[in-house]
């Protein structure tokens, strides 16, 4: 059982890693968000042209939703995460209430659109947001849920109807009321074997040993090619596509640059834990690559707005350069023992 009297809300850069870190914290294991991200091998790149968001292809900078939690439960010995989905709202709410009454800290997968505490302009139909529910009380006959949303600086409350709508939103990645909680948590984590394993996995999944053309470094090169082809598209589509790249990178989750910085933070922590100086070097390299991603986003924004004399070719080549830099690192990481 978590100790909720001691539970401290902490703002995180990303919802899933933040929720996982919050659950660990409540169960007395101090795992940082970056450590969660690294141990779960969350870092990647994926270009999914067949998944359209408002008519534009999906680009992701981390593993698909729930993968981080799943990876942790596979890798960490003694950690058991219970996932549950529901056929209808009544059952879903009843189960959540029951777990809260037992003093459990419960993670929920929700849509962003129906959460009233989100700023209006950020409310889109994104169904894989993660938040932690830590309590319920009745105010003037209305149920209020206390929520620790990892991407907010403060805790929030939400009425039952909104939370139900968010938990049972329909469409792509529909959460079906999905909730999760830690059933058993180990007393300590074997970093000496876990960290090298996680680093090797990230290296293999993204570098030259990755065989899928749409993920990892290959995915970046595909997007570079697509950017060059924008020349043939209408001006409006070109602008939307470039804006979409920036949004996918910076707005959704924590951005391309953001995930690279977060991974660098993991490598630094890992270097301390394992006393391996080369991890410090890789951390510095990922910080530099994160800076390049930001520069790339800025370039896309400029081309989209027609500022300066930048060309699509320039943006494509920039992205290829980033891909090459990441490739070198991934290939080293794949051999990390």
């Amino acid at each position, binding site marked *: 059982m978590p100790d909720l009297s001691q539970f401290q809300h902490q*703002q*995180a*850069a990303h919802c899933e890693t933040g929720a996982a870190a919050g659950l660990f914290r409540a169960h007395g294991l101090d795992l940082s*968000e*970056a450590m969660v991200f690294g141990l779960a091998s969350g870092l990647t790149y994926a270009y999914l042209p067949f998944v*359209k968001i*408002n*008519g534009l292809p999906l680009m992701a900078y981390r593993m698909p939703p729930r993968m981080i939690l799943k990876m942790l439960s596979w890798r960490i010995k003694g950690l058991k995460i219970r996932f549950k989905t529901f056929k209808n709202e009544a059952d879903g709410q009843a189960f959540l209430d029951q777990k809260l009454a037992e003093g459990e800290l419960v993670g929920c997968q929700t849509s962003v*659109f*129906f959460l*009233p505490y989100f*700023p*209006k*302009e*950020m*409310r*889109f*139909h994104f169904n894989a947001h993660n938040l932690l529910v830590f309590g319920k009380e009745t105010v003037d006959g209305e149920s209020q849920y206390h929520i620790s949303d990892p*991407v*907010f*600086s403060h805790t929030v409350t939400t009425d039952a109807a*909104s939370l139900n*709508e968010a938990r049972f*939103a*329909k*469409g*792509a990645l*529909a959460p079906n009321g999905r909730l999760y909680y830690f059933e058993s948590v180990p007393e300590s984590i074997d970093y000496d074997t876990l960290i090298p394993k996680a680093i090797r996995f990230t290296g293999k999944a993204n570098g030259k040993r990755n065989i899928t053309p749409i993920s990892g470094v290959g995915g970046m090169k595909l997007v570079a090619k697509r950017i060059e082809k924008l020349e043939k598209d209408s001006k409006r589509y070109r*602008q*939307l596509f470039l*804006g*979409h790249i*920036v*949004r996918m990178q*910076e*707005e959704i989750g*924590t*951005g391309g*640059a*953001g995930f690279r*910085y*977060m991974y*660098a*933070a993991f490598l*630094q922590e890992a270097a301390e834990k394992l006393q391996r100086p080369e991890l410090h070097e890789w*951390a510095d390299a990922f*910080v530099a690559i*994160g*800076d390049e991603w*930001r520069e790339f*986003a*800025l370039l*896309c*924004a400029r081309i*989209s*707005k027609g500022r300066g004399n930048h060309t699509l070719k320039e943006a494509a080549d920039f992205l290829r350069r980033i891909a090459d830099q990441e490739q070198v690192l991934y290939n080293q990481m794949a051999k990390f023992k």
Partner: protein
Amino acid sequence: MKIDEVPQQADDIYEGETKVVYAVGQDGKLATASTQGWEAEIEALKDAVDEIEQQAREAWQRARNGETSPLEYHMLHQRLDVPMLAQAMGKFQWQIRRHFKPNVFNRLSDKRLQQYAKVMGLSVETLKRLPDTLEPGEPQP
């Protein structure tokens, strides 16, 4: 990125909320830092919102002229598009588009209207009618 380089371009769209990013501190260590927003990101978000609002305005005008049903306007106003709505409804995209025809929409069963209202987070009454004036609107809820 260094901690003192973390962008702080506050904008109303975030309604005062902040976000967290990782940045390099004085000691060379990465730590979390709070940010109010970044220009490139804010502009991209505003463009995306503008685009969908523009489409909603066009649909409202067409619905006024009787060329489409209120459904198309409400769909866009609720920041959905045809593929998303089709998936949420468990229907084909052509079926959704067919419901954009005013005469088809007017014949929809209560059950179907109820289903649309549910996935879009609206009441059936709101779904059935077109607002009289087009306010630069907040999607419900």
